[in-house]
């Protein structure tokens, strides 16, 4: 299980490659990457606030919940905070399982849960 909360930008491909190459028995790896959208070209920056003392605990709980519901071999959650600009990756989840279905369902579940239970707040500045 790999939980990262960081203000630094990240490269989704580097994260996926490291995650995939450490799998020994997985047959399926699913990743989700969330990007900053600029709907009408007016967004200058997005600021993501979080609750540091709670964030890591909440993400670990979300990851644990997923591993209890699906036969996962590995889970990664990465979420940025601070200032972001359009098209930058905001966050990423990755799941590894023997089978496709578990990897897909768990990644979708992590995203649902993370949106409603992890203490992050986006604020857009135009």
């Amino acid at each position, binding site marked *: 299980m790999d939980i990262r909360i960081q203000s630094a930008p990240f490269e989704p491909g580097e994260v996926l490659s490291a995650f995939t190459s450490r799998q020994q028995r997985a047959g399926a790896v699913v990743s989700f990457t969330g990007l900053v959208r600029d709907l009408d070209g007016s967004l200058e920056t997005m600021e993501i606030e979080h*609750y540091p*003392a709670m964030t890591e605990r909440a993400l670990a709980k979300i990851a644990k919940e997923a591993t209890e519901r699906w036969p996962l071999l590995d889970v990664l959650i990465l979420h940025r905070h601070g200032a972001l600009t359009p098209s930058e990756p905001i966050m990423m989840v990755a799941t590894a399982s023997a089978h496709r279905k578990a990897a897909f369902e768990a990644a979708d579940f992590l995203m649902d849960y993370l*949106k409603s239970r*992890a203490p992050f707040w986006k604020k857009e500045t135009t």
Partner: protein
Amino acid sequence: MKIDVLYFAWVRERIGIGREAVETEATTPSELIAELRGRGGHYEAAFADVTALRVAIDQELTEFDATLSDAREVAFFPPMTGG
């Protein structure tokens, strides 16, 4: 008892600070909110609509009628928008 009270996102912006120590006899977050609203001004504005808020006690999401006994930190914030 003394509790650290934290505010995030627009709750923090309306109240004007992110954290304060509060001396209170409240036994639930709802009672604590009633006390804070009693201060008027920014607090009344921030807590006008509790249905738009979420609460965490000691970094765990909880309900507004949860017990505050032994709580060291209570946080109020709008619905989360991560992901």
